[in-house]
């Protein structure tokens, strides 16, 4: 069974009198352990689809199963708990909590789960080492480069050992060298940990690393290319 099974997902946005169809009947299947890219130009619906899969948004219609759960039937509190346990997020703008150190940022999600301080700090340190930031646990985000901050975001996304990591334009704010390095890191984590990655991007660098590329245009899947 697929880890993500989306069928005929439709989503409209309304801004005053203007209505825009963001997703126009998208169906998508992502297997566990996949390293998949959602490709497409701006406005094609990549972020909307990612938000819906990540239970941050709800479609008007369609069905969606993530990790065996019908996530569209969950209440707000259940969705929050589901995200905490099953989904890791990496955002374009890093989105770290600026008053927390690198270690605290990574450990934050585990603290929400009630994991003891000793255990979550050990996990955070191990993950920071895994993403190449060994010894930088006490630094605040503003003391780190963009690439380093995004690596912390990746470490945070993995802290709860989620079923899937959703990454929205993770390389958009990085130079190509740093972007390449980040993609190599995510690919490596996918291979060593078996964590599923679904990455939205129109960056060729990302698409080059993906084993499956789903092309979106105008809210529709145009092409599903598996490497």
């Amino acid at each position: 069974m697929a880890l993500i099974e989306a069928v005929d997902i439709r989503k409209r946005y309304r801004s005053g009198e203007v209505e825009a169809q963001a997703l126009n009947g998208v169906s998508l299947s992502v297997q566990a352990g996949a390293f998949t890219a959602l490709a497409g130009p701006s406005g094609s619906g990549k972020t909307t689809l990612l938000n819906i899969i990540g239970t941050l948004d709800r479609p008007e219609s369609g069905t969606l199963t993530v990790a065996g759960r019908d996530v569209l039937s969950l209440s707000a509190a259940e969705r929050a708990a589901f995200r905490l346990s099953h989904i890791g997020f990496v955002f374009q703008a890093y989105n770290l909590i600026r008053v927390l150190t690198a270690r605290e940022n990574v450990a934050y999600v585990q603290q929400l789960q009630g994991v003891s301080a000793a255990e979550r700090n050990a996990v955070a340190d191990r993950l920071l080492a895994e993403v190449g930031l060994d010894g930088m646990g006490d630094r605040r985000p503003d003391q780190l480069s963009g690439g380093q901050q995004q690596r912390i975001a990746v470490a945070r996304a993995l802290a709860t050992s989620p079923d899937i990591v959703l990454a929205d334009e993770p390389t958009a704010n990085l130079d190509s060298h740093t972007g390449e390095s980040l993609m190599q890191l995510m690919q490596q984590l996918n291979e060593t940990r078996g964590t599923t990655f679904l990455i939205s991007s129109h960056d060729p660098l990302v698409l080059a690393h993906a084993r499956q590329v789903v092309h979106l245009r105008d809210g529709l899947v145009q092409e599903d290319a598996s490497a």
Partner: protein
Amino acid sequence: MFDLSIYLKLGWRNLWLHPLRTGLTVAALALGIAALTFLSAMNDGWLQQIRTNFALTMTGHLQIHASGFQQTLKLARHIKDPAQVMQALDGLAGIHSVTSRLRVSGLASVAGANAGALVYGVEADKERHLSRLAGFVTQGRWLLDSDDRAVVLGDGLADRLQVALGDKVVLMAALDNGDIASEVFRVRGLLHSGVLDIDDLAAVVPLGRAQQWLDMGQGVTDIVVRADDFEQVTGLVDQLRQRLHAGDGSQSAAADSSGYEVMSWSEIDPMAEQWSAFADAYTWIVLAVVILVVLAEVLNTMLMSMHERSREFGLMGALGVRDSQMFFMVIWETVILVSVGSVLGFMTGGWAVWHFGKVGIDLSQFAVAFSFMYMSPVIHPLLAFDSLLGILGAAILGAVVAGLFPAWKAARLDPAAAMREV
């Protein structure tokens, strides 16, 4: 179980992201709390003075009379057997001292002048231990147990009669049967209490001579009790009412079969208690206004902080922070902000209370007005534990109230929309 320490950590660090803004808010809070602390202590200080002065100047903490005496002040309603009452007082804990008095309205007269007087027959030595009357003597001396026809006059009464130490004064009063009796006394002392009712009216004479003059036998009108402190009064009054099967002075003598009334200082003259209630109400109004103003500042700070950090709140929501956790996180942050201001405010206000509690605040220019209220012209602020709790409670409650709206907004944020905001 969810670890709350992250809220404290986030709250504390977020506050200091904008040190100037937080500093100004904390300073406003601290100033408000300090002002409230000091105002409350002033209030507590002068209320304590009023109560103490009222009780110790003359009234005592409680008095026992024959039923109906306090309402009528008629000699006919006197305690015929004081020994029986004294027996009831035996073995009661919390009593500092006891004395008997004979109190009657009369006329003081000298050649060419006379004036209304309130005559007190007192047990000279016991009175010295119970009230401050002896300490108020400014000329001459207080009564001695061996005195017979000596009188100590309030200095205002002496002025009106134009008498000095050693002069003779005739005191007249109506007897139980309606006859007028008079007695000659020699002025041995003049007193000044600062209380007009005493200074302008009091003529204090030995109890024995007063009983003889007024044909009272062993009878007295008041048995006055000074308790160890105000905390003892209610218990003592209750016990004495039980032991004497006495009333509280509110019922008529006919309705009171026991023959006695036991009255606390506040029942004898409700003025001090009413002042206390009035001052409390006034303080709470001021407290509410100050807290409101300060909390408007806190609310503004929190809303600005919320607005700036909506991305961060959106992120937290995306990571799995529940609405309720978001709500309490913002409440916590407000409580931390108010707590910092409150601690500084209490320290500043506490220092002012401590300092002025030692040196006092001299308001002598208002001494005449104060004398009506048994207030001393120098006020020593005194912060009562209840008042401290009241201010602290109001500050924390206010913090929670001020945090409710930002917290509600944070809890309702749509994570995806919030993260799109720049």
